[in-house]
């Protein structure tokens, strides 16, 4: 390298660079410089220099151009066909190609903030973006997953209905960062109002020039469309969701290849959840450091929870990550309704697990919840009191995942059905001593052998309830009793005179006049008329019916 060389072109020649075509880029630079007689044109020497790896392999081929006027400018994703343009613009006309410089900046920004996917898995969002950005190809897609199928979670719906613009903004930033020009929002069809409002917001953005060709004059194109789902829980799984957008049966595909490499219509695709995109705007506006200052070491920012079930104030709450489950339920949501005792909280929907009373001080972040045997999931917290039977809850979730299994792989399709049969047997009082072991064994196998997230997590509610509430399973099997008085086949259908306070609430609740009660008298349940609907049981605040 000579001392008076005024222009240096450094081309990364590490393994990553070479595999992405650094040699071709170098040859092209040498050819263009010779052809143009560049040294004569600018009156300076031009050196093409090979350098070692500089670490940002995701964005190879990296080319640094050092000139007296501009200093050092790094271009990423350089391809041979772009070399001539770079030489013309940067070296001859001395204008920096802004567009190429901007992308890694946003990736790094989001990476620094520590934002993790809010859909449940908790994968670092910035990393996901750089994977997709690094994938070769001109056409890339950004997808927003708004197929909020977890029963008991509805924060995505409220974001879409309340502030659809923040999703559009988040998706545009993602599109800009990874070089995607087309976006889809996959919304489940059960949310007609969300679809209507989002469509309205998209229309406004097109009108104002925030979407479409040459967005706000930045030379960046971005189109956005809503894709309406048609009622299939498994479409929340990213590969199934893409199959559904393509107009096929929404069945998952094996990974790898990951969507970032080969996604929608075989093109690199980035999928994030509604809540994740909603966070992006705030990170860009207020800074990565601000965002990273909220939450815990591993889970940054805030998380929205849908708190439902037997709690006083049901609804959506947004808390900083790391608050304890106890605080969420007791301080924020007012504790348990109807004066009853807390039993457990189910976190993470059909893929999650239960948190019993003795580990209520678990902080709500991704890793602590997984350690407790539950998971963040999409953020549904269903609170259960002493009248909720854990075996019945496990049966409920399994019934749901059994229905929603797409049927592609055997462990999920047949395994879940077989497990459900055993659970039904137990709740009907026909359980056998070996059933618990059988459930544990099958659950573990299904988790290991299933193709997608649905099957891999479906046994979680059963495994976690057995872990914490084994005694309830044993009571059903050995004593043919449901300790929570929940499983109908095991109920006695009678009033406990010692507990009855003679209030008459059960009489009002009974739809078939099967309760005999007069003022000052202990109520009586007439078994012949009773339809076992349990209205009286739920109405009684004193647990006087068993």
């Amino acid at each position, binding site marked *: 390298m000579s001392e008076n060389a005024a222009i240096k072109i450094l081309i990364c020649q590490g393994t990553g660079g070479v595999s992405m075509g650094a040699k071709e880029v170098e040859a092209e630079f040498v050819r263009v410089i010779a052809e143009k007689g560049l040294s004569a044109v600018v009156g300076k020497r031009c050196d093409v220099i090979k350098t070692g790896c500089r670490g940002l392999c995701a964005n190879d081929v990296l080319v640094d151009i050092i000139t007296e006027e501009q200093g050092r400018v790094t271009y990423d994703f350089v391809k041979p066909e772009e070399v001539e343009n770079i030489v013309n613009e940067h070296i001859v006309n001395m204008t920096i190609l802004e567009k190429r410089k901007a992308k890694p900046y946003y990736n790094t920004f989001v990476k620094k903030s520590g934002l993790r996917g809010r859909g449940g898995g908790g994968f670092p969002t910035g990393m996901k973006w750089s994977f997709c950005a690094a994938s070769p190809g001109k056409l890339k897609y950004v997808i927003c997953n708004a197929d*909020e*199928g*977890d*029963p*008991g*979670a*509805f924060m995505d*719906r409220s974001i879409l209905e309340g502030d659809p613009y923040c999703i559009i903004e988040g998706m545009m930033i993602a599109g800009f960062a990874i070089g995607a020009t087309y976006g889809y929002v996959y919304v489940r*069809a*059960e*949310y*007609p109002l969300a679809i209507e409002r989002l469509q309205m917001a998209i229309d406004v953005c097109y009108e104002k020039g925030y979407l479409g060709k040459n967005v706000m004059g930045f030379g960046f194109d971005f189109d956005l469309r809503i*894709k*309406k*789902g*048609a*009622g*299939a*829980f498994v479409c929340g799984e990213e590969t199934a969701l893409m199959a*559904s*957008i*393509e*107009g*096929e*049966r*929404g*069945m998952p595909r094996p990974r790898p290849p990951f969507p970032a490499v080969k996604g929608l*219509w075989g093109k690199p695709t980035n999928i994030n959840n509604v809540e994740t995109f909603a966070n992006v705007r705030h990170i860009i506006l207020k800074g990565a450091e601000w965002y990273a200052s909220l939450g815990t070491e591993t889970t940054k920012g805030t998380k929205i929870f*849908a708190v*439902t*079930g*037997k709690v006083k104030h*049901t*609804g959506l709450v947004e808390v900083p990550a790391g608050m304890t489950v106890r605080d969420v339920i007791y301080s924020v949501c007012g504790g348990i309704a109807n004066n009853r005792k807390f039993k457990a909280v*189910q976190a993470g*929907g059909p893929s999650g697990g239960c948190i019993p009373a003795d580990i209520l001080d678990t902080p709500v972040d991704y890793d602590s919840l997984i350690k407790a045997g539950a998971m963040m999931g999409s953020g*549904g917290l*269903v609170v*259960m009191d002493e009248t*909720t039977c854990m075996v019945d*809850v496990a049966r*409920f*979730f399994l019934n*749901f995942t059994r229905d*929603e299994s*797409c049927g592609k792989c055997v462990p999920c399709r047949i395994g879940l059905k077989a497990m459900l049969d055993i659970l039904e047997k137990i709740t009907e009082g026909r359980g056998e001593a070996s059933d618990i072991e059988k459930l544990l064994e099958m659950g573990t196998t299904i988790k290991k052998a299933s193709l997608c997230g649905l099957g891999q997590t479906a046994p979680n509610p059963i495994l976690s309830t057995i872990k914490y509430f084994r005694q309830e399973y044993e009571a059903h099997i050995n004593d043919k009793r449901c300790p929570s008085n929940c499983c109908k086949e095991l109920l006695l259908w009678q009033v406990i005179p010692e507990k009855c306070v003679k209030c008459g609430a059960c009489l009002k*609740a009974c*739809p078939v006049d099967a309760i005999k009660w007069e003022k000052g008298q202990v109520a009586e349940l007439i078994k012949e008329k009773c339809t076992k*609907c*349990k*209205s009286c049981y*739920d109405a009684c605040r004193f647990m006087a019916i068993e």
Partner: protein
Amino acid sequence: MSNATAQNSETEEKVEEPIDLTAANAVIDKYLTLHGNLMPVLQGIQDEYGYVPKPTIELVAERLNVYPSQIYGVLTFYAQFHLKPRGRFIIRVCVGTACHVQGATRIVETFFDKLHIGHAETSADLRYTFEKVACLGACGMAPLAMVNDATYGSMTVQKVEEIIADYNQRPMKK
């Protein structure tokens, strides 16, 4: 209404009335150039006819150049496509986690008893279709039921009877 029986296989077999395909053609025209247009087309057709009639499947296959078997595969995979005519009033009862914990099962059973139709069935007079759904997204008001677009929160067995009495009075024409 209470003695209406569920559609059985015999009534299904009756001769299908000829279907006017103008609306279906218009839907296909609208989405013809869109990438991945099969689902929007089928959803559009269902919006027009209330279900996806058989002749429209053949039409879509012909015009979008896909196999009818592929369309049938898509229609049967998703819960929201229907191959049979649906009731005037569609009753949906949420059986999601929060509703389940709050006693959705007895709401479902009361509807079964009163309407004599099961899950995903339509009454013979086409007044009611009953469906259990996983989550309607209003868990704070559990248990929840919907009739067409009207939502009913904090459901009780008594409320089921009131709702049925109400809708029995309503006209069949839209």
